């Protein structure tokens, strides 16, 4: 068992990511939805390169061919109060 933490926001280990790929996940989007990797405060900025490397090792898909999840605002977490008080 490899217990290295890969996704710090959601506390996911390398082994958990590899398990999910062995169960059939083939894309970053599937891994995100099944394990929550990339859904935390960093939105994948920390973990994504590592997850992509693991996915490449497990599936043989080249990094440059990998489809990445859609990047949307906000780029950094922002409080609802700041959003509510800011003028359009």
């Amino acid at each position: 068992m490899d217990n290295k933490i890969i996704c710090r926001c959601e506390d996911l280990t390398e082994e958990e990511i590899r398990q999910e790929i062995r169960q059939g996940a083939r894309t970053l989007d599937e891994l995100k939805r099944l394990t929550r990797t990339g859904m935390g405060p960093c939105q994948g900025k920390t973990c994504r390169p590592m997850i992509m490397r693991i996915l490449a090792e497990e599936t043989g898909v080249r990094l440059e061919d990998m489809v990445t999840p859609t990047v949307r605002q906000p780029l950094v977490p922002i409080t609802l109060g700041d959003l509510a008080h800011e003028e359009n």
Partner: protein
Amino acid sequence: MKKTAEVVVIGGGVSGAAIAYNLAKRGCKDVVVLEKEYLSSGATGRCGAGVRQQWGTEMNLRLSMGSMRMFERMNEELEYRGDIELTQTGYLLVAYNERQWEQFGKNVELQHQFGLDVRKLKPREAREVVPCLNIDGLVGATYCPTDGFCNPFHVTQAYAEAAERLGVEIETFTTVTGIERNNGGISGVVTDKGKISAPIVVDAAGGWSQEIAMMAGLELPVYSERHQVMITEPVDPLFAPMVMSFQHGFYTQQTPHGSIIIGMGEKDLPHDTDVRASWQFLHKMSKLITWVLPPLEKAKVVRQWAGMYNMTPDKTPILGAHPDLEGFHMALGYSGHGFMIAPMVGVLLAESILGLPASLPMDKLDVGRFQRGELFVEPSVV
């Protein structure tokens, strides 16, 4: 990919997966599910994840209450390796005018007839359920403690894996490009990866269901519109139930994970399949939600997204066979509440396709109702 099948299900959302599982469970195992991206990549995986039973019509009450019973034992029934994360922390529906409050009263009467535990609360009592609720202008609220939250990705995955164990084939990243007909019936489905001959097709394509129907030469009275959602980082427990207002069209719930989901139905949206997220939504939504639940001011938004509601003229789904094309079955037009009734829809569609006795009469939800002018008016939709 198989060259022939008994049934081809188009759409790898919760509906398609639940229908495939229920077909296989009843012995019809020669089934293929076609999904153009990955499982729950469409409306299912983009929904607000709420499961409620507080509806205003008998049909929706029976669909949602029956589905809740199934969610409650789903991990065991589907022998899921994960967890569908059902948490029954209730739904609090808030009324801001007398007319709405009167409607809530009628709904509660009907709900009680069906044995649903739901209570009418005065504003002060509503604040006992959600202590941080701003009760300015609130007339009353109804609260059902057994409504709640469930994880749409895992429910879909659980159905899909159980279906596969029974022999169903699931083809992801496979796009349907055509439907072939012969003498009044269906002969097959064409995809970008080849053709499958099949006499029965189920259109469970969510936001694209009208496009699939068009491939079979059928025009459906449905359209898709974009609805947006945002989510905060996980915070300490702040409120338990889903809080929902039909007046403002918003809903918000703290998930078991601690993050708070906030969504809203906007007016006058374009009828298309656009799922881009907008800044305007973040502004509008944050102004409204910090007024309703002031402590949310301090919560940080980490992500926003959008998904499609597949809308029918009466905001109630179309279920069952199409009268003009033998072998074409529909599970579509959920109008924003497909996830929470999917377990029952899976059972009903399988029964209808296989000609088995129906667990509940769904003929009122046929596509013919729009031509007959027998609209099914559900008073409780965001």
